[in-house]
């Protein structure tokens, strides 16, 4: 075949090749687009809802719930509680979609070094989650601004900080999700674990009324992430919230990698 000499001159492969392949794969299935569309709709609705809550709280007869002028960035941060699950779904499908169809064996044939495959998948998921989070937070908060009227606060610097914090949070949550998917393989298992870790366990601990449990909840990834995004926490400075979240993502990545290396495809 004449192509033999030609293809041999091409460069690429290894990690850059793996990232390019995973990027191509992410944008050549419909689920990615549907998830992004769903996340956009949900972000818009959640931001409008939170803006209306703010108007109601400030406009009613009860002065104790007044929020005063609200920075619009915090509206988007509030909406993340809901929107994150759609983007978690997007990240999860990048890996569990391959396990459920058997396509993971093809992927590992192209990229046989497990570490490179997982690194490429988490990088792509992190970039998509981070970019989508940033763009959606910006759009959602700006959409809430006219509705809030005189109660809406907008200063470019803090707003940009809020929006980028949402992006960073969703990037790390996406990395955590893909790593959990590598560890667990099944979509249902991954989703259950993510729900438990992100939502159920911290909520139960916080509702326990026991201080020690509540302190443990502060170190769960979504709680730490929220502390980082809101810039407030009783127990630690906000930047530590980011580090705690990053530590969860890194731990999941190491566990996923260890499982992938040990396991036959």
């Amino acid at each position, binding site marked *: 075949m004449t192509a*033999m000499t030609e293809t*041999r001159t091409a*460069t*690429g492969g290894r990690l850059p090749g793996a990232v390019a392949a995973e990027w191509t794969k992410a944008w050549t299935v419909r689920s990615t687009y549907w998830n992004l569309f769903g996340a956009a709709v949900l972000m818009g609705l959640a931001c409008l809802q939170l803006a209306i809550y703010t108007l109601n709280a400030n406009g009613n007869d009860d002065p104790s719930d007044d929020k005063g002028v609200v920075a619009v960035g915090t509206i988007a941060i509030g909406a993340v509680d809901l929107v994150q699950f759609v983007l978690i779904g997007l990240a999860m499908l990048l890996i569990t979609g391959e396990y459920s*169809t058997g396509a993971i064996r*093809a992927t590992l044939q192209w990229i046989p070094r497990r570490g490179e495959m997982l690194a490429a998948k988490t990088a792509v998921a992190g970039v998509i989650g981070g970019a989508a989070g940033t763009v959606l937070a910006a759009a959602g908060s700006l959409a809430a601004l006219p509705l809030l009227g005189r109660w809406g606060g907008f200063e470019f610097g803090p707003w940009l900080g809020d929006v980028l914090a949402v992006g960073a949070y969703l990037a790390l949550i996406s990395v955590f999700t893909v790593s959990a998917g590598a560890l667990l393989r099944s979509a249902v298992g991954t989703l259950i674990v993510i729900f438990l870790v992100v939502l159920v366990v911290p909520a139960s601990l916080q509702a326990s009324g026991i201080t020690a449990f509540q302190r443990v909840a502060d170190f769960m990834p979504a709680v730490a992430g929220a502390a980082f995004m809101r810039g407030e926490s009783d127990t630690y400075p906000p930047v530590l919230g980011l580090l705690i979240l990053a530590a969860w993502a890194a731990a999941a990545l190491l566990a996923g990698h260890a499982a992938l290396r040990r396991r036959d495809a």
Partner: protein
Amino acid sequence: MITLTGLTKRYGGTTAVADLSLTIEPGLVTGFLGPNGAGKSTTMRMILGLDEPTAGTALVSGRRYARFRHPLREAGALLDARAVHPGRGGRNHLLAMARSNGIPRRRVEEVLGMVGLSDVAGKRAGTYSLGMGQRLGIAGALLGDPPVLMFDEPVNGLDPDGVRWVRELMRSLAAEGRTVFVSSHLMSEMERTADRLVVIGKGRLIADAPVTEILAGSSRRRIRVRGPHPESLRELAAHLAGRGVTADEVSPGELLLSGTTVESAGEAAHRLGVLLHELSPLEATLEQAYMELTAGSTEFTASTGEAR
């Protein structure tokens, strides 16, 4: 070239592949035969680094597959045609594959043309028929233009034209000097396609020889004898049986002999004055040779109490 050295794979207590050592040479089509569960797919997966051997090594052109910078340019494989995301189009599947190994985009169109999928490459792979999926898998194996190719049951689901196309493709790939390693359970297909056969059973090597040698080694090279007088044929049978020849009367007037030659059977008939209408050697088929080789090593033997 593929080199297996003491390749072994155990799952818990069961041994899927046991101490397999062999070399699969370039320039030949090497058929890989064995009953279901004999360890063919496991062996192929170990060659590609998908499964980790319990012991031993599997090398592609002298190196472990996972060590190559561009593995798809060293070995192409069709293992499981369904191992494709059903929501992704054939072209995009190959495009992602090409990007992973720095293969130029135009090569995707080339292989799509080679397997005849250019017209449907935009459709989602989940809508493909079994045969189209098989062609997509073959396109993927050819994508990196590799010197080593492996195909696990490549003609599954193909129509007769497709089967012939695969056969000619295998032959031409080998003629270009590539290593072609093909597993199949279709003996007639292997008889026409393969130069050499590797037969395994229960994970162990049973035979590794040229097809002609395996055919010649079959103990079932038999001779058919027909005549108009069943009685005198029975005399001949008794006479030959006294000389250690196995003679079965398959129907009145027809014998099947084994353990003798056409010449000595003809001479015996002449001496006894038995009139013959036919005295012909039956060529052993690969299927017979294979059944003899693997007898006793089938994983899932149907119980055939009456038939035996």
